């Protein structure tokens, strides 16, 4: 295949530099791609699509008829990250999660950071995701944010920025594992002779973390995954993780609280549950404490949690650190708790709740990306440069009506990765969601989920809005000259 026709179009490309030389880590992949015969790329892509359909790797789309499952598009050209760069990203993520855990714990206890005026008190008090009922609580082992999926983007300057922190119930890790599996099935020769960090041990690490945070009295803790059910967009992932860990996948109706202890209903009666990896938002966890109309929750769950009889993962109340206005303060939060500068920079962010910043946003709306502070999945996003005058006017009105609920960022020219279009490659924009586990220590899954906007020129990578995904490789350079000669032997 002739790669000389490939164009980076002035964007940062993850595989090629501006002179179409392979970037560090991507050399061997690029050599293999160049060796493809005519039609091979398209044939491999079809084989991968077929494997996905058979494996039933699907997600549900909201707003369509109930239970519409879609195959999440997968692109067979992997995204490569050099191990040297990854080491820095990993350190940055550990630092960030460590600080955010301190922050959440502080907010529900002494609130030092508010008294010291590092983060404004009004910001926390007005946040929808701050949970009053969690004040004074300390979750088992002091861990709040057990599982985080942090969204990273690389700009035109080549710098990796943090775009969002997802600390509620981040999804996507199952696709990381399945994408690797599909790649191995359909494209084994790409792996030959390369040192790529494995991702397959994630379920073991996850289970170890869940058992570690069990209430101290539980000897051989029973762990379950709590799902809202098969119509949830991430149901595939819920069942995947339960299966991989070998634990029960339960729905709210399977659980019952008796004497402040959570049990599941089994064919042999009630059985005690110690740790719940819940994939249900705080709002729906317990109809007696949060939304009374929740049908997917468990009445009495929060009481059992407060009594220390069950661990909830992530801890209720963690979502406060997920607020996109709070995000703007994370570099300060890191400095406040750890006394360090943030290793991974934020994308510059204007908080509309601050009067001066709001004025700036309203004035420069056409150049900015506006986000609601409390939504996920890309819902409610307005991309200024691509919005019509009417859309901008509507957006402006919404901001002025409720400034607290909006933040704005400059548009980031997301980096691109070559992506299969027919039998050729074209650049498509990507982001990256690494997954971080906080248990006995902090673990970062090498790589993470690369989401790709499959529509030409599009910057929206969300699965619900036309995005797909790619396998993500953390590639190690040759460890020694001897190894170098043996790894290049097959190429």
């Amino acid at each position, binding site marked *: 295949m002739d790669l000389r026709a490939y164009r980076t179009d002035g964007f940062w490309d993850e595989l090629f530099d501006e002179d179409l030389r392979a970037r560090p880590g991507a050399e061997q992949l690029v050599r293999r791609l160049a060796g493809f015969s005519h039609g091979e790329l398209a044939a491999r892509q079809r084989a991968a699509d077929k494997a996905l359909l058979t494996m039933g790797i699907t997600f549900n789309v909201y707003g369509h008829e109930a239970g519409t499952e879609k195959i999440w598009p997968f692109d067979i050209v992997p995204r490569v990250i050099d191990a040297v760069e990854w080491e820095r990203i990993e350190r940055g993520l550990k630092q960030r999660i460590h600080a955010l855990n301190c922050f959440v714990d502080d907010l529900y206890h002494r609130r030092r950071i508010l008294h010291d005026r590092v983060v404004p008190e009004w910001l926390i008090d007005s946040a929808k995701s701050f949970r009053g009922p969690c004040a004074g609580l300390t979750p088992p082992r002091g861990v709040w944010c057990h599982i985080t999926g942090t969204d990273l983007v690389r700009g035109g300057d080549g710098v990796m920025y943090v775009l969002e922190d997802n600390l509620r119930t981040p999804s996507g890790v199952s696709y990381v594992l399945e994408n690797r599996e599909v790649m191995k099935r359909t494209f084994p020769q790409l792996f030959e002779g390369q040192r790529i960090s494995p991702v397959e041990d994630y379920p073991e690490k996850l289970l170890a973390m869940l058992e570690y945070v069990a209430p101290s009295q539980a000897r051989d803790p029973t762990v379950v995954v709590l799902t809202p059910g098969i119509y949830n967009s991430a149901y595939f992932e819920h069942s995947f993780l339960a299966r991989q860990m070998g634990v029960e996948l339960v729905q709210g109706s399977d659980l019952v609280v008796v004497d402040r202890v959570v*049990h599941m209903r089994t064919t042999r009666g009630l059985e005690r549950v110690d740790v719940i990896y819940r994939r249900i938002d705080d709002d729906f966890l317990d109809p007696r404490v949060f939304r009374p109309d929740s049908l997917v929750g468990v009445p009495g769950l929060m009481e059992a949690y407060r009594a220390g009889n069950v661990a909830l993962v992530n801890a209720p109340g963690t979502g406060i650190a997920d607020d996109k206005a709070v995000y703007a303060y994370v570099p300060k939060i890191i400095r406040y708790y750890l006394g360090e500068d943030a290793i991974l920079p934020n994308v510059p962010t204007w908080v509309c709740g601050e009067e001066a910043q709001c004025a700036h946003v309203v004035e420069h709306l056409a150049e900015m990306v506006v986000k609601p502070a409390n939504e996920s999945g890309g819902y409610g996003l307005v991309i200024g440069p691509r919005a019509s005058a009417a859309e901008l006017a509507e957006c402006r009105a919404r901001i002025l009506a409720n400034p607290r609920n909006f933040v704005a960022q400059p548009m980031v020219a997301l980096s691109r990765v070559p992506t299969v279009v027919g039998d050729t490659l074209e650049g498509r924009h990507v982001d990256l969601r690494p997954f971080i586990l906080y248990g006995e220590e902090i673990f970062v899954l090498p790589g993470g989920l690369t989401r790709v906007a499959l529509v030409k020129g599009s910057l929206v990578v969300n699965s619900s809005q036309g995005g797909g995904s790619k396998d993500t490789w953390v590639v190690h350079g040759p460890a020694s000259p001897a190894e170098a000669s043996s790894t290049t032997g097959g190429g």
Partner: protein
Amino acid sequence: MLSRVADSIYWMNRQIERAENVARATETTLDLALEGTVDPGRLWNALICAFGDQAGFAARHGAADQSRVFEFLAFDAGNPNSIDRCLQAARENARTIRDLISSAMWEEINKCYLMVRAAAEAHDRRGNQREFLDEVKRASQLITGVTDATMSHGEAWHFARMGRLVERADKTSRVLDVEHFFGPVAVDGRDAVQWSAVLESASALEMYRKQYGAVSRRNVAEFLVLDRHFPRAMHFCLIKGEESLLAVTGGTKGSYSTPAEQRLGRLRAELDYAHIDEILAGDGGLHDWIDGFQTDLNATSDAIHATFFATPPGG
């Protein structure tokens, strides 16, 4: 295991077994229709009656003929027992227990579902009827094989097997009862043709011949009701079903501690000591006896539901 999950795997297996049995009986009827010795209208009507869907069929389609009955049994979205509906329900159940079943099982169920959906959405279904039914049968058998080979034979597997065997016992009894709706055709040895078809509908012809040779009504009934070794015989289904039930409860044959054990044990014991000539000579003959069997089998399934799946009261 979770009550809801046990319920799902039990029904998932019943649904797949049901689809397989509908496919097999339909295929046999296609064969009989080809032979042209009997009135096709009666033939297709008997199939609908034996599977207990007569009212639903008549309301939706009117008089029975090959293409209407095939459509009704294979694809009709208004027929809860159509192959398409069975596979949709089975896959939905499989999705809710994806964490429990092996990936190999899931992939086969998913593939079968995709195949049936594609066939249901195809415009011209006439040419490939036989091929379609064959694929359904093969897929069901593959799923059974993959289940046995890739899933631990623990509690969940026993619920799966119970579901399959309860459904199979019911369907074999219905195939045997076809005579009642079809009427006797004992002219010029035609009887043998009909009873051979009954055996075919239960995939039993070859095994029957090894044991009895010539085909007769009495021996076919004896084989399909009372045989202890043929896997589609009603007695076999109850013996193996009870084994699975006892594996779940930890009980022993001959006593009971749950309604499910009591019901299934009693029905199995009845067949242990039954004699085919008594069944055939009884009041109302074979048909009434089968009717009674189906009622008892339904009560057994209800008891399994009450014992394991019904939600115990919470706090």
